[in-house]
């Protein structure tokens, strides 16, 4: 079975706040849900599917379903995949709609990592039951180090420079000018990025995303519902999901799971990277964007970084609102970034 053309995204809403110390996480979830439902032109009574991840209070579906009084649910899913949870949710919602398990699915994300003081430079206590904990936690890994390692390898293997990585941030800062809710409103230069304080070599402060409060929600619905609404119809035509780990010791940090999910999504959609008019790429750190653009097939390995200094455009237009690098979105997970 394919999800191609079996479901549509009919509603989308991004919370305007980037700092919300006086709004509960549950209320943020409810506010983005309301925003997406109203954007779609639907009612809360139409929602019969609900998807949320670890950022939802309780990390389950029932607390938020109770809070929002979603009382017509017949399909629920609280899959947690960190910052890519919501992309997985949309694909799973499309599968559920295609299988007739629900007709109108709500996906919510919200968090207050800014107000709660989360940082990607903090060691996170992940508990003792994780099989990797006894081997890794003695070294106190933090998020930024785990990305810096990949950036350092990219530099060593492909000759990538800090100036090339900095162009990702420069582009993000230009795009953020047009988002009225952006956290960082000023355009930055390559010099400002490479001269910002070193956080974890080779990543400077401006190679890292902002940590913000807020959230967002989308509505996935059956094509018949989409056609009944007075909005442009956005069909879901392909998806891919995976996890990449240490591969039984064959660690290769030169690529990400995008190298596997991209081809699967393109195959299902029946399109090629060159057909894509707009790519929305996760931008937790500058190196994250470079690796993903390469892995998704928008350019050859090692070429993404060297293509950046030619301008602020990527091989395809990318990240027009720059929600993470400069504008800031909510993260659910108390690291530097997610969502």
């Amino acid at each position, binding site marked *: 079975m394919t999800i191609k053309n079996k479901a549509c995204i009919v509603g989308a809403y*991004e919370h305007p706040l980037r700092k919300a110390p006086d709004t509960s996480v549950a209320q943020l979830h409810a506010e983005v849900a309301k925003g997406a439902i109203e954007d779609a032109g639907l009612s809360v009574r139409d929602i019969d599917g609900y998807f949320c991840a670890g950022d939802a209070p309780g990390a389950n579906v029932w607390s938020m379903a109770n809070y929002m009084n979603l009382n017509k649910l017949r399909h629920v899913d609280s899959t947690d*995949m960190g910052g890519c949870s919501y992309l997985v949710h949309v694909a799973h919602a499309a599968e559920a709609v295609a299988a007739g398990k629900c007709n109108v699915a709500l996906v919510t994300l919200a968090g207050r990592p800014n107000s709660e003081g989360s940082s990607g430079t903090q060691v996170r206590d992940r508990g003792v039951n994780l099989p990797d904990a006894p081997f890794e936690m003695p070294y106190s890994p933090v998020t930024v180090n785990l990305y810096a390692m990949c950036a350092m390898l990219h530099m060593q293997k492909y000759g990538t420079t800090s100036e090339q990585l900095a162009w990702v941030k420069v582009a993000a800062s230009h795009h953020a000018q047009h988002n009225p809710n952006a956290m960082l409103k000023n355009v930055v230069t390559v010099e400002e990025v490479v001269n910002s304080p070193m956080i974890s070599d080779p990543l400077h402060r401006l190679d890292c995303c902002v940590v913000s409060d807020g959230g967002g929600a989308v509505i996935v619905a059956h094509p018949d519902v989409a056609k009944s609404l007075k909005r442009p119809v956005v069909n879901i035509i392909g998806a891919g999901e995976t996890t990449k780990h240490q591969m039984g010791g064959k660690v290769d940090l030169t690529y990400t799971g995008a190298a596997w999910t991209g081809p699967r999504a393109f195959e299902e959609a029946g399109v090629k990277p060159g057909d894509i008019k707009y790519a929305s790429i996760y931008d937790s750190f500058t190196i994250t964007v470079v690796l993903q653009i390469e892995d998704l097939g928008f350019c050859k390995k090692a070429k993404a970084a060297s293509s950046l200094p030619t301008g602020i455009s990527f091989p395809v237009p990318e990240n027009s609102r720059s929600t993470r690098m400069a504008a800031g979105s909510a993260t659910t997970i108390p690291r530097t970034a997610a969502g």
Partner: protein
Amino acid sequence: MTKIIEAVRQLRGEAHAKVQVPNCNLALAHGTGGAIGHRHGSATLIMERV
């Protein structure tokens, strides 16, 4: 999540005029969860405006 919202806004032609891609009918959103240095999740979504 913001990656999906950005793509939907582009496909609907609702992005700010300065960054709206003309006739944007095919968009991709991609996300990473966890940390690429040890373990992570990846997800790609392709959407089309009809």
